[in-house]
């Protein structure tokens, strides 16, 4: 299961950050997930619930997902366009010389700690 593997990486990073900041319980972890990152948000939050509740640091901690829309840049005409709607081919000029500007992220944005 793909998302579970990702969850283990998130937990590892969160534990490390919590230790560095002397935090004993995290109430929310905010993730930035790109639209074309291959992560399915619902699966990620399901796996999160299962794995996080096994850790004292993360019991009841919410995983909040802030999606990042995918944008592709075209070298042919220099314009940007939404990736999901148009794919690899630029809707402005028809060029195939395009590359993903953003939308691939699987990033931990921040931790929220209640005191």
């Amino acid at each position, binding site marked *: *299961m*793909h998302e*579970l*593997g*990702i969850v*283990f*990486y*998130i937990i*590892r*990073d969160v534990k490390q*950050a919590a230790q560095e*900041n002397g*935090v004993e319980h995290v*109430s929310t972890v905010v993730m930035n997930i790109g639209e*074309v990152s*291959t992560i399915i948000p619902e699966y990620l939050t399901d796996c999160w619930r299962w794995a996080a509740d096994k850790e004292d640091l993360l019991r009841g901690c919410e995983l909040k997902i802030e999606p990042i829309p995918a944008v592709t840049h075209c070298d042919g005409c220099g314009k940007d366009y939404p990736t999901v709607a148009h794919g*690899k081919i630029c809707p402005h000029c028809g060029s*195939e010389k395009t590359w993903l500007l953003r939308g691939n*992220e*699987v*990033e*931990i*944005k*921040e*931790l*929220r*700690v*209640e*005191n």
Partner: protein
Amino acid sequence: MENVKIIEIKKSVFEDNDRAADALRGELKKKGVFLLNLMSSPGSGKTTTLIQTINRLKDKLRIAVMEADIDSDVDAIKIKEATGVESIQLHTGGMCHLDAEMTEQGLTAVIGGQPSEVSSQPSAFDLVILENVGNLVCPAEFDTGAVKNAMILSVPEGHDKPLKYPLMFSICDVVVINKIDVLPYFDFDMEKCKEYIHMRNPKATVIPICAKTGEGVEAFANWLLKEVARWKE
């Protein structure tokens, strides 16, 4: 909400792994070992292709195989019996992919000793092949530290796979299209498939083969031979 402290992280989940993978590649370069990461869907023919390829290369290169599987060791035994080369099983403990850390542990078991201790000595192997877990999603996201990535797409899976799994095709240096013996029974369009692969990755080498009979395997073996030689320069 007034009592909430925010700790900013802004860190990619893959960052630690990417760093470990780069470090591993650096070690491999020093030791003169070429690591190939071989990926595909379950049953596309990874093990069969490896047996055919290794039997063509084993007189020219010193080869070892690491078989990653969630729980069995069928493939590792099969490789050893059919080729005679060193072959070990890596269990992923339920995970759907191997990361750089697990790969390094596997390499340590194959090459022997602690990686740091043997780093300055030349290795007993020229080529180590990792058969990754059968899956087209997760292995694409986790850099194993391999020098090159290869994937096998088999004819029954359909020619539109590059459209469905863009990331996998974009990271592969070579795409082997296996089971061409069954082309007459499937409406698999080879030219379309190549076109879709090159849309994702203009630099990918595409090699059609039949691992069952060995047809086309020579081309894959030659590609490997050339890449290993270039890495050891």
